[in-house]
């Protein structure tokens, strides 16, 4: 048995490690765990970044081959933040029993889908629902979504960060002008506009700097605010009212900005995005004993929550799945009134968990890697990576990244402020999500992977910690042209 404690570094819950080891040994002695299984067991003591997440206190992740037969590999994840005295034994027994061949699978939970890549899981439909019905959610909680962020507001609004960003951009324009290479129209793109506050503040600051220095760049700016939610775009308009003549609002899929903006290929000077990549569909891979396993997930509701939802909203348990489908079709007033519909949605989202299984990748060259990756690149990247670890493929972030780069002017750059794993070695020290943030989903982004992929696309990537707010976990990705 291997026990990984790294994730608990500096966390108060480290004391529960002894409890886990003691409990597992007891189960071994009592015959609940077979010796062969014990030898291959890998227990990870996790500290999930987001308290609201998709995990039960203990989950066992069994390995399978591509034909659905079990292979002798099992990861047991213990979310130490959720451990309460006396719960471990029962939770461990329950998790291990589920992985026993032939064990009844569905007694304690109601699956909401089949096992599949997390990228296509139903949880992303909940995420989409949240952004399209944000107003309903905010009305119910009485809080704006930014208040749910760590620190209570977006780091994107930090005035010092904005001033530095403006200064860098002005310097770039000045340099281009000195070489007679400044285009007549200067395009900027913001992907994921939020409340529009950052964009409004940035433009106001830029106008001030431009006027002070007498360069007259401000009237040449063409600012594109893109978001896939029309409701969010509408919400952002007041914040940029002062600069309305320069701004255009676009419904845009963050996964493929190029699709909407192909007419601006190689023309955009600056693309900025804050907390968007962490909110795009993702999937994970485990490397174990020299082999790769793809993590498949299945969303489910624990039976206790099924009963609670059923009682409170008078929905028979056998109608719960179809009720969820109706909710995800975009309607929140299906329970008679909108308020009740939102209450159901919130309670349901809070209850949803993800179970996992590992599926051996037997044919790497034909594996459906996300855009920008293939077997050769993955093998190259893994050469320098830890031998046993779990990492994000960051499929959505990769797609967005690669479909944004072609928009950049030869001297243009992309700035992404987000929660990044900036080095694959960091995966040794922590499990990075996914978590729930209000009604949305978020996940750390594999910045190390983006960096490698960017190099092949002609860009160097560097990460700068966001130093403008103490305790911020975000960092800023900057691209520069690679020669």
């Amino acid at each position, binding site marked *: 048995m291997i026990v990984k404690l790294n994730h608990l570094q500096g966390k108060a819950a480290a004391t529960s490690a002894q409890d886990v080891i003691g409990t597992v040994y007891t189960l071994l002695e009592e015959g609940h765990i077979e010796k062969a299984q014990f030898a291959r067991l890998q227990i990870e003591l996790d500290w999930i970044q987001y308290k609201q997440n998709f995990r039960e206190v203990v989950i066992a992740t069994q390995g399978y081959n591509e034909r659905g037969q079990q292979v002798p590999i099992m990861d047991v994840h213990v979310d130490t933040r959720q451990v309460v005295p006396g719960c471990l034994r029962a939770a461990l027994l329950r998790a291990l029993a589920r992985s026993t061949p032939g064990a009844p699978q569905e007694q304690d939970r109601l699956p909401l889908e089949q096992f599949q890549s997390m990228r296509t899981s139903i949880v992303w439909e909940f995420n989409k629902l949240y952004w399209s019905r944000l107003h309903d959610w905010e009305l119910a909680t009485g809080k704006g979504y930014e208040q749910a962020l760590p620190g209570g507001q977006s780091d994107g609004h930090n005035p010092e960060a904005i001033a530095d960003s403006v200064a860098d951009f002005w310097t770039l324009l000045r340099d281009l002008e000195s070489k007679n290479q400044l285009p007549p129209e200067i395009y900027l793109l913001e992907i994921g506009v939020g409340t529009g506050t950052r964009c409004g503040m940035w433009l106001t600051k830029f106008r001030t700097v431009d006027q002070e220095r007498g360069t007259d760049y401000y009237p040449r700016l063409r600012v594109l605010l893109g978001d896939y939610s029309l409701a969010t775009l509408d919400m952002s308009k007041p914040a940029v009212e002062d600069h309305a003549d320069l701004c255009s609002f676009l419904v845009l899929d963050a996964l493929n900005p190029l699709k909407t903006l192909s007419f601006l290929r*190689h023309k955009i000077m600056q693309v900025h995005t804050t907390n968007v990549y962490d909110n795009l569909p993702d999937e994970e891979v485990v490397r174990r004993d020299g082999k790769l396993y793809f993590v498949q997930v299945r969303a489910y509701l624990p039976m206790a929550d099924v009963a609670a939802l059923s009682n409170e909203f008078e929905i028979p348990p056998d109608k719960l799945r179809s009720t969820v489908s109706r909710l995800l079709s975009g309607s929140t007033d299906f329970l008679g009134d909108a308020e009740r519909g939102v209450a159901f949605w919130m309670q349901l989202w809070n209850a949803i968990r993800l179970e996992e299984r590992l599926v051996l990748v037997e044919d790497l060259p034909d594996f459906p890697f996300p855009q920008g990756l293939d077997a050769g690149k993955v093998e190259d990247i893994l050469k320098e990576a830890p031998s046993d670890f779990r990492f994000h493929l960051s499929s959505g972030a990769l797609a967005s990244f690669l479909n944004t780069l072609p928009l950049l002017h030869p001297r243009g750059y992309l700035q992404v402020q987000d929660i990044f794993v900036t080095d694959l070695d960091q995966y040794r020290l922590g499990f990075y999500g996914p978590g729930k943030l209000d009604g949305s989903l978020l996940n750390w982004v594999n910045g190390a992977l983006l960096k490698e992929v960017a*190099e092949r696309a002609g860009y160097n990537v560097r990460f700068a910690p966001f130093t403008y707010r103490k305790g911020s976990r975000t960092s800023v990705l900057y691209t520069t*042209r690679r020669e």
Partner: protein
Amino acid sequence: MVGSYAMPGWLERLKTEYFARRISRHDLDEIYDAAAKAAIKDQEIAGLDIVTDGEPRRDNMVDYFVERLPGVQIDRSSKKFYYDFYDSVVQGKLPMASLGLVPDFNFLQTFTERQTKICITGPHCLSKRIRNQYYPSEEALATDIAKVMNLELKALVKAGAKYIQIDEPYYSGFPEDLPWCVKVLNTMVEGVDAKIAVHICYGNRYGKPSWEGSYRYLFPTIMEAKVHQLTLEFARRGGEDLDLFKEFNTNFELGVGVIDVKTDDIETPEMVADRIQKALKVLPPERIFILPDCGLFHLSRDVAFAKLKAMVEGTRIVRKELGK
């Protein structure tokens, strides 16, 4: 073709395998030969009148020449990926010696009966990539590179080369260098008895432009260049700069880029024909050559082939309209 054909993913991986010392030089050379034959055949099937070897042997447009330039030292450990540039340095006067490009030309001649073109990266571009620790100026380094290359061009002509293209994409990034660039270019082509084209684009590193702007910076200085043809990109950038050939009375032929090599979108023959017609408004047909904007290196083979076919079909439409 401007020079390079699509670089297949499998060849990229094998090149990188070579740098990782997992396949031998001998095996790599055989792979290159096979890739070059395939590239030549694809161009013939697409219907091109003039073909190149597709340049599969070149890691990029710089290193293939830097490796061969006598007197230039390279750090072979400086490449992580085959497409990266070597770290190269010159610390003494370049000796006059062969670059060894004739075998490439002979190979091309052996495997096609079409007209051929060989492309060579120019001294200005190379002088921007080689760290200069000896010469008093970039111009002085570029001039000596041009002298070495002049010998090579003459050797190619002796081997039968009739059409040689010099690639100078960095002109557009450093327009202030142009006056000395033209002098260096003239040194390079002095006494070379072949059709000489100069390809000037806005860069194609990683399939994206390195600069933006207008070709106006070329005029009138470029008119002093003793070359026969300018090969320029117009498909991606639009045809506005074609008017420069009306404004300035040059004797150059014009290689008109009608295929955008920085997008996978495949042009229709009609789009190509339209682009050619725009060029015909400023120059007579006998002075126009039809090409892609730049090398097809960054496109997949399927896309590159389809684009070449569209280029040929578009040209046929115009030829028919012209009664040729």
